[in-house]
């Protein structure tokens, strides 16, 4: 193929520079990379996936199988771009791919040569599976890296993507997918109803197949209609036109997913489209003929060669052979001939329509009927084709001869784009007339029109579109408008006589992008991969970025021939979104880097940051883990903080706790059902620790609940369960006990919360808030008071998680930092420090308190030694199923304390508890370690864990085994209450 610019087509005359493999080239405004490369005489654009065969431009649209290029460089490098879909811009860098050193001289093309010497074996389907089996040690060390280097499609960038992407929710009454004649008509008619219409078109220009028509004076009538339609739509305030936007998925609720390329401040948009009605006018894709070397540069789909000529002003060759089995390709022959290009039509049909025969004769086009192209020949591109006469039964050929040409335009029929219609799970049905699949029953609110529905005639397709628009508008309570029809019809009659493959030898590509040949399909059949789903996965057919748009029907037909069954019985693979490549960035949107997920801040977050806290992610919070001093490690810091709290006083941000208000006259009854213990007997201004179970009898969550009034409670939950506990409460009220007069609501965000713990906590708070009496008589253990500091209302609970005398202070969030700083200021004389999550963990483990590490959804009340808390005077959620024998089994692992026999040896969380240090760990596992810490008070590593019959094994020495790291530690089983077993400190 030696393409050249023959006119302007629809392009502007302004020229600019781009580069291909570093060579400067010119392009015109409106050119795609493909058309610009053709205009510059570039024939070989890259090499194929597996065999490294030369590849050029095969189409003019999204079905492109050959011209895949890499754009840009550095972090903005983008591989595997279809050159037919990418507009050229000034300075654009375009690179060939899958070749070294150049597309025309590629050393890896040895694959193709070797494969040619050993046809049917080397590199065919299943080659890798069968060839690289031994020795197993080579799989990941040699075979996989070597094959990955040799195969694959281009190289992705190593750098992070610097571009921005947006995720946009779009709403419309009617979504029209496809901007061809049918789509334009549907949008025009719908728009006149006043309803909101969005029109999606994957190409830069609207018009679809109308863009194949010559825009010249003779044929300008259709062009005028196209332009007029576009202008009308652009002027309509209720119409949004999204070009370069591929609708790639259709989902429940009339939701469409679309991907828009805009190349502005934001590079691409991912539209989630919520439509009232959907009109699919996605058109049809021309199918290739299957003959030897049909992937060679210079072999193009006929309609695409025509678009190159009429839209881009490029003659894709000097001597044209058209190979077809239907009427549509004749238009390509006529248009090229009209430009004085030598043209031969090879029609596999014996009797094409007389009017086409006459037109060929009139225009001086040679026509060979009942003939086929057996093979394309040429080193890099087509230079000759081998023709033959096809026998009447289509199984043999005679009279082979060679004809010179540099452009072979072929058409094996048209495949309606049914993917979107089929995404609803609809099964496509094979249609004999058009030799392709159609979706018989569309989802609700969806219509398929025009070529997408198998209707190739212009007027008939438009009529379908208008009918769909009318019905859609009617159903939305509006009236669709009339439109002016194009000045003339375009005959879409194909008179197709299928020829699924030319019955000859050679590399007949079916899936050109993935180098899948007819031999591969036949081999799959012989090896038993006869289901189309297996065929797809065994050969990788249809799995490249064109998603088999050109390949699938031919492949199914060839498999049907192999199986001696109908194409309908052979069936299709299931259509799944996306139907076209979507940049990962578009899915991700703005959620990258530091914005990967929202961050939830506490009212004291800024203070923690100023004070140099090291943070740890807990859910969406970044909790202070510790507050290091100069030179301190994590271990140094948390040991210091833990010791300090035990000896003096510390303050900790506990805003992270879930906070729920429970109100209503039945609030007490409700909480009695939710918690295992009684809350109805709780006096006003007192707090009580409570545990709730799931319906299946396992522990769900724990926390303290405060009674603020007879009919108002203030509940705290663990951080992790804050939202799920609220949902649990709401579900119980809505579904289980709708008769209860109770409301629950989250107040987590209203309150800042902080814990002040340690022997000097009372003095610290008394010093901070002089008007509040912190004496035990006024505020005993589990008591609650309300007070004020400079008109700021405080809620103070005397409860302890650390085991020391401690208080929880709740204050309106905007005042959180003020109160925190006040406590720090007042506590300075008592040497107060802030302490973080790590220290909080150490304190609670020393005290033997459980948290999420222990309450992991698998433990019962008995397992955590709290069965005595369960009330016997009332029913509560989980009570019935906690009685199951398995949950009452006395041999269940029970919560115990574990202390390193050698106090300097840490115990790994997650270790398995075993009794024999020499036994394979999993053979006699008797429990596990749930959490561990270093205890400054005991000067030893300690842990909490669950051990079978653990309460009767205090004093026994067992082993905590961590097989992954081959570690085993001798531990003594002790009570889980390491410090202050009498619970005196909290009451001090």
């Amino acid at each position, binding site marked *: 193929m030696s393409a050249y610019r023959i006119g302007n087509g629809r392009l502007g005359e302004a020229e600019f520079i781009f580069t291909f493999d570093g060579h400067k080239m010119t392009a015109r405004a409106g050119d795609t990379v493909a058309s610009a490369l053709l205009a510059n005489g570039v024939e070989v654009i890259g090499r194929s996936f597996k065999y490294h065969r030369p590849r050029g431009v095969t189409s003019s649209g999204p079905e492109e199988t050959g011209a895949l290029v890499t754009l840009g460089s550095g972090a903005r490098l983008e591989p595997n771009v279809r050159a037919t879909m990418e507009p050229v811009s000034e300075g654009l860098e375009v690179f060939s791919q899958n070749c070294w050193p150049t597309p025309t001289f590629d050393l890896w093309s040895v694959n193709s040569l070797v494969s040619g010497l050993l046809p049917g074996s080397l590199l065919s389907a299943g080659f890798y599976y069968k060839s690289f089996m031994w020795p197993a040690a080579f799989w990941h060390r040699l075979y996989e890296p070597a094959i990955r280097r040799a195969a694959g499609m281009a190289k992705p960038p190593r750098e992070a993507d610097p571009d*921005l992407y*947006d*995720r*946009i*929710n*779009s*709403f419309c009454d009617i979504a029209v997918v496809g901007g061809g004649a049918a789509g334009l008509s549907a949008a025009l008619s719908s728009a006149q109803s006043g309803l*909101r219409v969005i029109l999606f078109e994957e190409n830069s220009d609207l018009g679809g197949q109308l863009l194949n028509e010559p825009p010249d004076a003779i044929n300008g009538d259709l062009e005028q209609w196209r332009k007029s339609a576009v202008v009308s739509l652009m002027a309509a305030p209720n119409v949004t036109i999204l070009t370069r936007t591929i609708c790639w998925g259709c989902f429940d609720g009339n939701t469409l997913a679309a991907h828009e390329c805009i190349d*502005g*401040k*934001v590079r691409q948009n991912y539209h*989630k489209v*919520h439509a009232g009605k959907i009109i699919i006018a996605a058109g049809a894709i021309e199918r290739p003929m299957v003959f030897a070397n049909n992937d060679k540069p210079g072999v193009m789909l006929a309609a695409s060669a025509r678009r190159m000529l009429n839209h881009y002003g490029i003659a894709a060759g000097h001597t044209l052979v058209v190979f077809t089995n239907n009427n549509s390709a004749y238009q390509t022959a006529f248009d090229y001939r009209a430009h004085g290009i030598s043209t031969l039509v090879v029609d596999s049909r014996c009797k094409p329509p007389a009017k086409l025969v006459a037109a060929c004769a009139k225009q001086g086009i040679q026509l060979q009927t009942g003939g086929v192209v057996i093979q394309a020949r040429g080193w890099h591109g087509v230079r000759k084709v081998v023709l033959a006469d096809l026998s009447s039964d289509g199984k043999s050929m005679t009279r082979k001869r060679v004809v010179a040409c540099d452009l072979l335009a072929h058409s094996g029929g048209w495949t309606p784009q049914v993917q979107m219609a089929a995404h609803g799970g609809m099964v496509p049905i094979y249609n004999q007339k058009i030799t392709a699949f159609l979706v018989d029953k569309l989802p609700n609110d969806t219509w398929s029109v025009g070529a997408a529905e198998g209707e190739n005639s212009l007027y008939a397709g438009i009529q379908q579109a208008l009918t769909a628009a009318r019905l859609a508008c009617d159903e939305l309570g509006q009236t669709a408008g009339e439109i002016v029809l194009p000045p003339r019809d375009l005959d879409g009659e194909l008179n197709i006589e299928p020829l699924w493959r030319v019955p000859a030898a050679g590399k007949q590509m079916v899936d050109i992008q993935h180098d899948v040949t007819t031999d591969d399909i036949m081999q799959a059949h012989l090896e038993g991969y006869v289901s189309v789903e297996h065929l797809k996965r065994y050969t990788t057919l249809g799995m490249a970025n064109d998603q088999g748009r050109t390949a699938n029907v031919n492949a199914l037909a060839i498999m049907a021939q192999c199986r001696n069954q109908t194409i309908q019985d052979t069936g299709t693979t299931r259509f799944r979104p996306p139907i076209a490549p979507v940049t990962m960035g578009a899915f991700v949107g*703005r*959620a990258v880097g530091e*914005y990967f*997920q*929202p*961050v*939830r*801040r*506490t*009212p004291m977050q*800024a203070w923690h940051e100023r004070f140099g806290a090291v943070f740890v992610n807990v859910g*969406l*919070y970044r909790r202070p883990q510790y507050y290091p001093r100069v030179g301190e490690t994590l271990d140094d810091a948390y040991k210091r903080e833990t010791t300090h709290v035990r000896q003096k006083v510390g303050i900790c941000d506990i805003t992270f706790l879930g906070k729920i*208000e429970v*109100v*209503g006259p039945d609030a007490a009854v409700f909480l009695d059902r939710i918690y295992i213990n009684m809350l109805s007997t709780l006096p006003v201004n007192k707090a009580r620790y409570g545990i709730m179970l799931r319906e299946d009898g396992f522990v769900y969550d724990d926390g303290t609940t405060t009674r603020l*009034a007879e*009919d*108002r409670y203030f509940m705290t939950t663990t951080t992790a369960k804050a939202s799920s506990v609220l949902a649990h409460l709401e579900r119980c009220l809505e579904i289980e006990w709708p008769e*209860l*007069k*109770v*409301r629950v*609501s989250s*107040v*987590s*965000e*209203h*309150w*800042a919360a902080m814990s002040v713990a340690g022997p000097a906590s009372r003095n610290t708070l008394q010093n901070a808030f002089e008007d509040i009496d912190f004496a035990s008589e006024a505020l005993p253990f589990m008591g609650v008071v309300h007070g004020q500091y400079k008109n700021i209302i405080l809620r103070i609970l005397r409860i302890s998680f650390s085991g020391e005398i401690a208080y929880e202070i709740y204050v*309106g*969030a*905007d*005042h959180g930092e003020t109160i925190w700083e006040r406590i720090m200021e007042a506590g300075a004389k008592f040497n107060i420090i802030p302490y973080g999550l790590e220290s909080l963990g150490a304190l609670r483990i020393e005290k033997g308190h459980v948290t999420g590490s222990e309450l992991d959804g698998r433990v019962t009340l008995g397992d955590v030694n709290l069965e005595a808390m369960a009330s016997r005077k009332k029913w509560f959620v989980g009570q019935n199923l906690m009685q199951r024998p398995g949950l009452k089994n006395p041999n269940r692992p029970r919560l115990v304390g574990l202390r390193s026999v050698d106090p300097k040896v840490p115990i790994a969380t997650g270790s398995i508890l075993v009794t024999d240090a020499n036994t394979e760990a999993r053979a006699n596992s008797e429990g596990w370690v749930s959490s561990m810490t270093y205890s400054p008070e005991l000067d030893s590593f300690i842990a909490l864990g669950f051990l079978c019959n653990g309460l009767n094994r205090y004093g026994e020495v067992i082993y905590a085994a961590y097989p992954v790291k081959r570690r085993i530690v001798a531990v003594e089983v002790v009570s889980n209450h390491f410090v202050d077993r009498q619970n005196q400190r909290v009451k001090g």
Partner: protein
Amino acid sequence: MSSVLYEHFQLPQIFTAVQLDVTTTPAMWQLEGYTNIDHQVQALVGMTVPDRGRVTKLGTERLVWFGRDRYFLTTQRQDLHDSDGLYVTNQTYSRAQILIEGEAARSLLARGLPIDVADAAFAVSDVKHSHINHIGVTVIRNHDNAGSPIFELWVMRGFAKSLMDFLLRSAATLC
């Protein structure tokens, strides 16, 4: 309502066709009950109870529908108390209020908000609960300003900075 956003941003921030700002009101109260509470609410606040998905306004006070038998009152009043089956919970600091105004306000909201805020679908004084960029929001449409729509987002205080970051970054690349 929470003034947390003033700690982090210079406001208002003005872009080509959209402006982002924050507003605060002295108090926000959650009013709720377990059965039809319209009369109690009306008696307490002296204002017509809004229909589902609507906001009513009287002077500087607003009553916002927040679910079945649940309303949020924004007001100057600092002390409201439970009465006659009506439960009043202080939520003053629980949420920050973000104002989005301008011709591109809808375009900005579309970048994350999965609800239709077109004129016909979301009228003045409508309210809906939804999310933006995984952050829960309550969206209120205020009265237009000289033809430009104004939307008010209520966002939980802890997430307010993240949401504002997201909105500002999106607004900066709108045009």
